[in-house]
């Protein structure tokens, strides 16, 4: 187990380097620059600004400098908001996205897994059709439709929750529900498929023949195998959830990370693009590792393969 962790962390180093390098050059080769604006600034001022941010040096020198700073853990100031360090912006926005992501994740699991299990256990009855129909609707309904819909019902009509903002616990409900329901739909379908396959396995039949209770079969035998595809999906899904969602953040006016991901690219905010991309890459790497560890715990075959 510790060898697995160690080798994965070792593999992460070249991966991150490749990502940083690719992102660095891709952002620089995109047309336009951070200081272009409609009220065009005089050329000599643009030169001063570029010199201030080191953009006047040869590209390769900038790259070396960037990697050196990166090794020291310095992401540099944002080009768009120079009064803020990139790491400072990520550190402010990440807790917000983490809260939203974890809440949505819990909702997605609480609805998705039981929903999928019921559907699998009661295959081809209304208890299968109803959750699966809803989950199909959930997958088809984009968050920018579901969000305003939930706001209309729970905020405008029933006045139960605030329609936007991120100032208190009551503000958390609608955005996490919107994001959670969307993921719940996927999880329910994956759970159902995984459970159906497992429930037909011989060892389940054996367990039943031995007189194990349905609850025991479900939790002790079927869930372990049935939830494997879900666990594989959960790693990247969790990384996606906690790194922010631009759409949800726009709809609910939430100061999360998702906005930086998108606007940094539009603004040619080079340091911010690199900061967010690397941050996301690290999240994915860590969570994939966690997924592998959980899978090894759940599945003896996977444990041996590794």
């Amino acid at each position, binding site marked *: 187990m510790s060898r697995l962790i160690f080798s994965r962390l070792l593999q992460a180093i070249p991966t991150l380097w490749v990502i940083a390098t690719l992102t660095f050059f891709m952002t620089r080769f995109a047309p336009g620059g951070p200081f272009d604006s409609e009220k065009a600034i005089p050329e000599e001022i643009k030169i001063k600004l570029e010199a201030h941010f080191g953009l006047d040096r040869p590209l390769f020198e900038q790259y070396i400098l960037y990697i050196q700073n990166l090794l020291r853990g310095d992401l540099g100031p944002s080009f768009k908001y120079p009064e803020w360090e990139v790491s400072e912006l990520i550190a402010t926005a990440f807790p917000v996205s983490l809260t939203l992501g974890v809440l949505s994740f819990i909702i997605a699991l609480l609805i998705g897994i039981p929903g999928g299990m019921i559907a699998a256990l009661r295959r081809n009855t209304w208890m299968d059709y109803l959750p699966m129909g809803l989950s199909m609707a959930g997958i088809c309904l984009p968050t920018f439709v579901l969000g305003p819909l939930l706001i209309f019902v729970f905020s405008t009509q029933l006045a139960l929750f605030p329609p936007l903002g991120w100032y208190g616990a009551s503000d958390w*409900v609608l955005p996490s529900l919107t994001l959670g329901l969307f993921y719940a739909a996927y999880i329910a379908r994956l759970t159902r498929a995984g459970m159906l396959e497992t429930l037909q396995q011989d060892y389940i039949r054996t367990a039943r023949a031995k007189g194990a209770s349905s609850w025991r079969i479900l939790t002790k035998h079927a869930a372990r195998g049935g939830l494997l595809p879900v666990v594989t999906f959960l790693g990247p899904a969790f990384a996606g959830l906690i790194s922010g969602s631009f759409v949800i953040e726009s709809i609910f006016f939430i100061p999360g990370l998702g906005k930086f991901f998108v606007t940094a690219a539009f603004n040619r905010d080079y340091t911010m693009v690199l900061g967010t991309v690397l941050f996301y890459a690290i999240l994915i790497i860590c969570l994939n590792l966690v997924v592998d560890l959980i899978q090894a715990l759940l599945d003896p075959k996977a444990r041996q393969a590794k």
Partner: protein
Amino acid sequence: MEANKQSALPAISIFWIILFGWTWLALGCSKPSNVETAIDEQVLHFGLGAEPQHLDPHLATSVAAHNILSALLEGLVSEDPKTLKPLPGVAQKWEISDQGRQYKFSLRKNARWSNGDPLTAHDFIYSFRRILNPNLGAPYASMLYALKNAESFHQGGKSWQEAGVGVVALDEHTLVLTLKNPIPYFLELLNHYAWFPVHQPTIESFGAYEKIGTAWTKPGHFVGNGPFSLTSHQINSVIEVTKNQSYWDAETVRLQGIRFYPIEAVYTEERAYRSGFLHLTQSVSADRIDFLKEKYPDELHFEPYLGTYFYRFNVRAAPFDDVRVRQAFSLSIDRQRLVDKVLRGGQSPATTFTPPGTGGFFPAPGFAYDRAKARELLDSYLREKGLDSLPQIELTYNTSEGHKKVAEALHAMWKENLGVEIRLLNMEWKVFLSTISGGDFSLARAGWIGDYVDPHTFLQMWRSGDGLNMTGWENQSYDQALRLAETSTGTAKRWESFQRCETILAEEAPILPLYFYVHLTLRHPSVRGWSPTLLDHHPYKYVYLAKEAHP
């Protein structure tokens, strides 16, 4: 087996109960809306539209930054809340001499910084010197070129003393500004944040004299002299200011604070307004006008705004190197129809480049609608060149539903009136900007918002070689007329020269003015002391919140 299966179901449903329990717990947190509590607190909840890039007045460039900085800082003069005419600010009074070339400001003795330090004439000298410091790279440094020798100092090489910039402090409370030539709107110009003072000890302690992006603008560090002080700044969430008790006119200030919310998504901002989260919105989506007109007839405001939406021709390349083609394109646009049928947001058709009434200047309409003449001009061009039709023309615009709507409408008008087929080409914002400034376009969308209420802010950009011109168009007579307007003092003489500029623009048509902007906003009836102004400036010290309905 059936019975066994069922026994699992109650356990599963426990999950659901937990979920709903959590939801119901959160229910207890519902509280009264911002607008409901605001009257007692006298806190204005302000839709800011976008997160300001800088809170340093010498580096800021946006409307959002103006909205914040005008709360935190005050210049030599302030603005009348209705007319924006200059009123005493830090300067109690002023004398103008040398035929409008010299301004002697007497600074009030009770003017203080928010930390209690006295505010003196030297603070202004320090600030002007900082923004003009070439190493700072201040985007609006050229605003101060109005001062004698400021340009030569900013262009570098000379020291402040050598350059002899026209700023002198006679004593702690007397500041004399000498201009390079008389500028009739000079006092109005002083209300631009480029002229606002900054606190030297704060700037120095962060090394911000010539360094961009230091932490001096953060809450707890920022020292201002305006009616409000910065108390919190959470990026993409809220910027909060509270009443500054050391402000010289604190008695007039009725608001206890303002909370600015940088909500970029227009629909979200509208929802925020409708739920009582905001007192006013920065904008309103055009497709919501009908609904809002019906639901909030007294709260939806169409206010004039000093801006022109137009297209640039690239006169460096065929076919727009020929004035007949440019004229034909311009004459075949029915601007009234565009405004009435397509935009439907209260805009007015632009028959000049300068919005009529800018500083009292009403230019004669130049850009007209005349299909027959348009056709005639185009035919004459095609005959001369021996062509059957024009080569493929591309109309470039930055990706946006609004710009697309206008482009499609014009596409239809040109097709109908000229028989010309153009191709619409949308681009991502930064790609668009670099394409246009590189001159790689034939016809491109643009917009211009005035920086001060004078025709000069519009007409100066068409000077030959100006960085904002970008059409490649150069005209000696235009440059002469503009120069004359800049150096004349009498209003009649200036208007005459500006009119000459407008006439040349309409004859030569390097641009295609389409419509004048309006500022579309939702504003709660409890907001008082707020008047529509051309620059969308609203001096906060006169604003307050009251219960009674509008008179």
